[in-house]
């Protein structure tokens, strides 16, 4: 550990990315629910059109949860294809910024010590008790925070882009291996759906924790940076 206390301030790049990502993701998720209503069945493999072969019959998402608020596949696809751009470009920007300003290596990368079961267990207990003051060994973020931010930034958000590209017939000729890797087009579509709902789960926990730990200060800090 360096002697200097790590800055608690959110970097400008983090704040810009956070809000572009939040807005894009909300639009992508809600327009995605509208698109899901067009064919509410998920399959594994390359093909699937018969509900009898589906591994999941998805519910019909109500208007309040979708963009637009009525079933309109064309308009939902417009929103989805539009929001995909700021979402993907902002994620690329965040990764470059996070590697350059060391946010990734300082704050998100976990150390070997943090992976000790006793340490992880302690972090879980502390969270369960509602104590969010972190062990100084972990640094700016607790182990669980690092793990979830790492999973979201490193796996889930990139996976949304990769699976989205894989189900686009115009993109597939550029990287047919990608569709194979994901197990076929309908598998890619299923993974797109599962990952979207995993992100929703993260979103809910994230919002709850912000509400518990002082929503006004947290939101203010994510806009203006906060105290160093």
């Amino acid at each position, binding site marked *: 550990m360096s002697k200097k206390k790590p800055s608690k301030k959110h970097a400008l790049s983090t704040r810009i990315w956070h*809000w572009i990502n939040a*807005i894009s993701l*909300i*639009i992508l998720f809600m327009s995605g629910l509208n*698109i*899901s209503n*067009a*064919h509410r*069945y998920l*399959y594994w493999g*390359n*093909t*699937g*059109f*018969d509900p009898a072969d589906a591994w999941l019959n998805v519910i019909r998402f109500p208007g309040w949860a979708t*963009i*637009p*608020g009525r079933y*309109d*596949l*064309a*308009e939902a*696809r*417009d*929103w989805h*294809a*539009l929001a*995909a*751009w700021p979402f993907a470009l902002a994620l690329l920007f965040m990764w470059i910024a996070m590697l350059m300003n060391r946010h990734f290596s300082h704050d998100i990368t976990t150390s070997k010590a943090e992976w000790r079961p006793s340490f992880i267990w302690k972090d879980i207990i502390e969270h369960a008790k509602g104590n969010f003051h972190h062990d100084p060994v972990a640094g700016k973020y607790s182990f669980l925070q690092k793990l979830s931010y790492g999973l979201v930034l490193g796996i889930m958000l990139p996976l949304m882009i990769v699976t989205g590209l894989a*189900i*686009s*017939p*115009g*993109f*597939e*000729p*550029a*990287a*047919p291996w990608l*569709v194979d890797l994901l197990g076929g*087009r*309908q598998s890619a*579509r299923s993974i797109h759906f599962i990952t979207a709902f995993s992100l929703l789960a993260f979103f809910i926990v994230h919002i709850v924790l912000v509400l518990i730990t002082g929503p006004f200060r947290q*939101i*203010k800090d994510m*806009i*203006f940076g906060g105290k160093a």
Partner: protein
Amino acid sequence: MTSPFNRRTALAGLAALATGACSKVADSPTGRTLSKAAEGWHRRAHRKLASRQALAREYEKADISPDFKGNGTIRISEESYQAELEAGFSSWQLEVRGLVDNPMSLTMDDIRALPQRTQITRHDCVEGWSAIGEWTGPQLSEVLDAAKVQEGANFIIFRCADSFKQGAYYESVDMVDAYHPQTIIAHMLNGEAIPQKNGAPLRMRIERQLGYKHAKFLTAIEAVASLDDIGLGKGGYWEDHHGYQWYAGI
């Protein structure tokens, strides 16, 4: 440094975005321009990432879906069509017209006499499902070359025998997709004449785009300079009447 007014404005702005007003944005001219632009960025990105002639995945016979789902128009009730269907489309005509030096009218025999391409490909519907089928027919480029497409032609229109509530079905592609090696005028599905539900007797295959681009019940192929004067000017039935994207590679 930070006045509460700024903070409040920022929060109000975020709240407004969160609660929607999305439909208003989508219906505004700016919204339409934005989504149209995004569609174009996707098309250009796809074509930059893959070569313009890059092939869609082709599959093995074992991968063919047992029953190829019919969607959209699955039956044409008009007597003239039903009579043609009965007669094995012996007097069906495919017109090739528009900006061509050599307009043609092809019979099914003419089409079968051209060099054929057979491809086992995956059909992806805009709704989300996929099916694999084996399609056979001449490449569109073969027909366009025989008709001698003129310099100024930028799009190929596909006219169809079926209609929906708001009018006749049609579709269009640009010259990149028109001359793509897998763009064929299919007359066979899985080794047999195309069934009615899948677009008998002729159906376009535009393999790198979604199903609604694959015009069924094909009656004419038209070379044009611009889409503006065709239908409502958006390049297809679904594009004109339901706001679907003209580039269906997403």
